[in-house]
Structure formats: C-alpha cells, structure tokens
C-alpha cells in the first residue's frame, strides 16, 4: 500500500536502481523489502534464461537417443534391481557394519587411558581419512594379493574390507565425539551402582551417544553407498556386479548411455530415503532435549 508506485510499475523483474538508500528510517525499511523482491525476481529471471537456453541450444533428439532410450532402459530390468541394486546394498551394508565395528573399537581406543592405544587409533584415523577410496580399493584388490601369496580372499570380502576401511576412520571420529558429549555424571552414576567401566560404556554411554551419532552415521551410509561403486574396478562375475559395474557393462553392450541414467536413478532410490532418515533423526535427536542430562 505504501510501496512507491514506481516499483509497482516496474514489476519484480524490472531493473531498479536503489535510490532511497540514504533516506530516513521508514523509507529505508521499505527499500529493504523492495530489494528482497528485486533479488528474488533476478534469481527467477536467471533460472528462466538458463532453462530457455538449454531448451533451445540442446540437441534434444540426439540427447534422448543417447541417454533416454526407453527400450534399453526396460531391457535392463529386472537384473538391475534383483542383481545390481541388491549387490550395491549388500556391499554397502556389509562394509558399513564392519566399518562400524572397527569405528567403535577405534573410538574406544582414542578414549583409552593407555597411550599406545590412543596413538594407534590416531594414526589409523589420520591415515585412512587422508586416502582416496579409490586408492584403498586398488591396494586391497590388486596390491595385497600381489604382495602376499595367501591373500586371495573372495571378492565380496575384499569389497567389504575396503569399504570398512574407507568408512571406519570417519565414523570413529563421529562416535568419539558422541561418546564425549555424554555427561561424565552418567558414567559416575553407573560406576557407583557397581557397573564395570565397559558395562557402563555399553549399557549407559553408547546408547545415549547413539542419539548424537546416528544422524552423521546415516550421512556416512549415503557416502558409502556411492563409494561402493568403486567395486567395479575390481571386476566381477556377471552376478557379482553392482550398479556401476552393470552400467559400464550395459554401456559397452548397447553402445548407448541410457544405462547410466537408470543406474543413477537406482542410486537415488537408496540415497534419498537415507537422507530423509538422516533429517528425521536429526530433528528427533539433534535438538536441545535429547534426553541426555
């Protein structure tokens, strides 16, 4: 109502020079709202321009022919689900469980009163946090079997260990922080009731730390789902392919890139519910009253 008529005429997307900057307070307030409106308008305009440019410039028939061949997509079913998606989930799940077990041990070592344990856990954590997942997979898959004659573990085990190594360092740090966030009084109360320190840790501290740990752990699971794609460099039998390996094989077979799109959607089928879960957990436990006193 009290908006200057000029801005109404120009509309939200019109170019406006901020003229009222040096004015008195009530007018300065107005110009703030005006500016916000203008900024939003510009953002929409940019979006529209980009969309239009893409729509006009892109070679749609070729694009669809390369990435969107429905027949090829349909041809991938049901194997893409029953084998590849299943394998991705299995690899990720196994790697995560082993990684979590290692991470808990590492976190407890970091909090140990024995200096050597603290140091070992620190070195491990720094080492694996600093390595690209690809390097871990290469060493596990090709380096170790060359170095040690007896090291020919089943593919599944190698993938599981590689993913565990990749994820355990991050998770250890997350768990350590979670444990340290549980007030000392909880342990003291547990010890005063006759619980041993390990009993107190597993019965009293860890369950409460979980509330703090769970949301970041879910994020780690998402990262690990994506990291599991590195299993493709190890090669595998047809039945042992996870999503990325399947995509590469199908791309070679069909000389078309549609399998990438199908597989990308499959990854999203896993990761989007997980990020939703992560947000729910964060909302539930992340706020002030987490029950930890």
């Amino acid at each position, binding site marked *: 109502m009290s908006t200057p008529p000029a801005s109404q005429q120009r509309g939200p997307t019109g170019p406006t020079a901020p003229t009222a900057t040096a004015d008195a307070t009530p007018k300065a307030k107005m110009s703030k709202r005006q500016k916000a409106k203008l900024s939003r308008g510009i953002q929409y305009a940019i979006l529209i321009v980009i969309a239009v440019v893409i729509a006009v410039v892109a070679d749609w028939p070729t694009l669809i022919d390369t990435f969107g061949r429905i027949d090829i997509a349909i041809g991938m079913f049901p194997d893409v689900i029953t084998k590849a998606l299943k394998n991705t989930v299995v690899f990720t799940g196994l790697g995560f469980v082993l990684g979590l077990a290692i991470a808990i041990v590492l976190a407890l070592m970091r909090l140990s009163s024995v200096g050597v344990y603290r140091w070992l856990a620190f070195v491990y954590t720094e080492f694996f946090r600093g390595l690209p997942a690809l390097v871990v997979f290469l060493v596990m898959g090709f380096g170790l079997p060359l170095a040690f004659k007896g090291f020919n573990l089943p593919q599944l085990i190698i993938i599981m260990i590689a993913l565990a190594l990749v994820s355990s360092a991050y998770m250890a740090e997350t768990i350590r922080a979670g444990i340290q966030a549980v007030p000392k009084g909880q342990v*003291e*109360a547990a010890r005063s009731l006759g619980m041993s320190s390990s009993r107190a840790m597993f019965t*009293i501290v860890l369950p409460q730390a979980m509330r703090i740990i769970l949301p970041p752990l879910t994020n780690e699971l998402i990262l690990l789902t994506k990291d599991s794609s590195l299993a493709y460099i190890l090669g595998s039998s047809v039945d042992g392919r996870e999503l990325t390996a399947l995509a590469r094989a199908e791309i070679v077979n069909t000389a078309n890139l549609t399998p990438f799109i199908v597989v990308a959607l499959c990854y999203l089928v896993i990761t989007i519910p997980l990020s939703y879960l992560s947000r729910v957990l964060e909302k539930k436990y992340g706020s002030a009253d*987490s029950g930890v006193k």
Partner: protein
Amino acid sequence: MTTSATASLRETGTPIIAIRNLQKSFGSNQVLTDISLDVDKGEVVCVIGPSGSGKSTMLRCINVLEDPTGGSIVVDGMDMTDLDLDIDAARTRIGMVFQSFNLFGHLTVRENLTVAQIKVLRRSKAEADRVAEENLAKVGLSEKIDAKPSSLSGGQQQRVAIARALSMDPDVMLFDEPTSALDPETVGDVLQVMRNLAEAGMTMVVVTHEMEFARQVADRVVFMDGGVVVESGPAKDVIGDPQEQRTKDFLARVLHPGQLG
C-alpha cells in the same frame, strides 16, 4: 524420637566406614590434607563446609570414584584402596546420590532402578521389578514408574535417584548436596525422603547446606574447610555452639546470609 530410634539400631564396635589419614591431590593441588572420620552403622553424618573445601572429593573417595593418594578407607570391612578388591562388587554396597541426579536419560524410571540390579547383581527381571516398585513407593513416586526422567521435576528426579541407589540394597548411602540443584519448592520432598531413610536406620553421609536438616536429622555434624576436618560433633554443638572461629564464620554466612554477605 528420631535420635532414640537410630541409637537403638546403631551397633557399637567397629565403624562401618573408617577413614584414616585420607589424602587426595589433583596434580600438585592438594585437596584433602589429612581426613580421619568414623561412621557407625545406622549413624547419620552431615558434612558441611564452604564450597571448594573438599567435601565432594572426600565423599567420592569413599566409593573410590576418586582414587585417594594417601591414607586408608575401610567400608564394611572392605579395604577400598586395596588393588585386589573387587571394586565393582564393593560399590554395590555403597549407594551414591549426586547433586545433578545423573539419572540415565535413555531409560525409563523403572529401567533406571532395575538396570544395575539385573546386570550387576544378576537379579531376575521379576525380582528387580519388585525391588524397584518397593523403593519407588518409598520415595512416593510409584505412579512415575514408566516415565522418562526428562519429564520429571528436579525433586522427582532426585527421589528417583535415591530409589535407584536403594534398589541395590546398599549398607551405606552417600549424598553429595542432593538438594543444591533443586527449585526451593521441591527441596522439602527430597529431605523428607532422606529423613525417612534415616529413621529406618540407614547409615548416611550427607554433604549438605541444609542446616535445618542437619540439626534435626544428623547424629553428627562434620565441618570441613581447606581439606581438613575443622570441627566434628553432635549437631547441637557444631551448629548450635561452634568452638572454632572458621566454623563460626561459615555458619554466620550460611545462617544469616544478609548480614555478612
């Protein structure tokens, strides 16, 4: 009436808690210089003294939440500083109540009262439940058995914490300023529970600033300052007619905060 009831329950002879020349340092900071204190079975000892005088540290040395750096502590015949002692088993016989309650936040009231009974004392679930219900009734909170601690008031949480300690059937109870973190209106309920316990013959060491409680319930009052016991004796003497200047100064500050504060 209180005094005669406790006196009759009190056994003469060896004290149930015997602290001899207790010393405790944190690094170079000597907090307890030389504490000796006996507590008889059924006796209620209130420990008073200014903040930082080492009251909590002394109490926490009794169940070895803090490791003493010198001296000896014998509770119920158990040498608490003996490295061969099963410290976890020993602690089940010493109940402790903290200023900040320290209820287990992820467990219900019932679970708070049963978890150590089941995992430490190896009682059956049914037995632990029965003991929990009995002790919860003692503190007047039977209806809260399925509540989460965070839904209770401070006073209620502290009463649950007392019930939790009692559920282990301890021989002695240690209280570290159990009402200091409470809203004034909930203090009375907690003190009443402690009064009942004292009347039932429980051996209690209570660090407190509640002079009225000490006067009425304590068989003995110990005044600590600077890591030593300055004065000790019946409540009517130590609080009513203190001999040491430091005790007089402290009581003047606590009892008449307006005049000297």
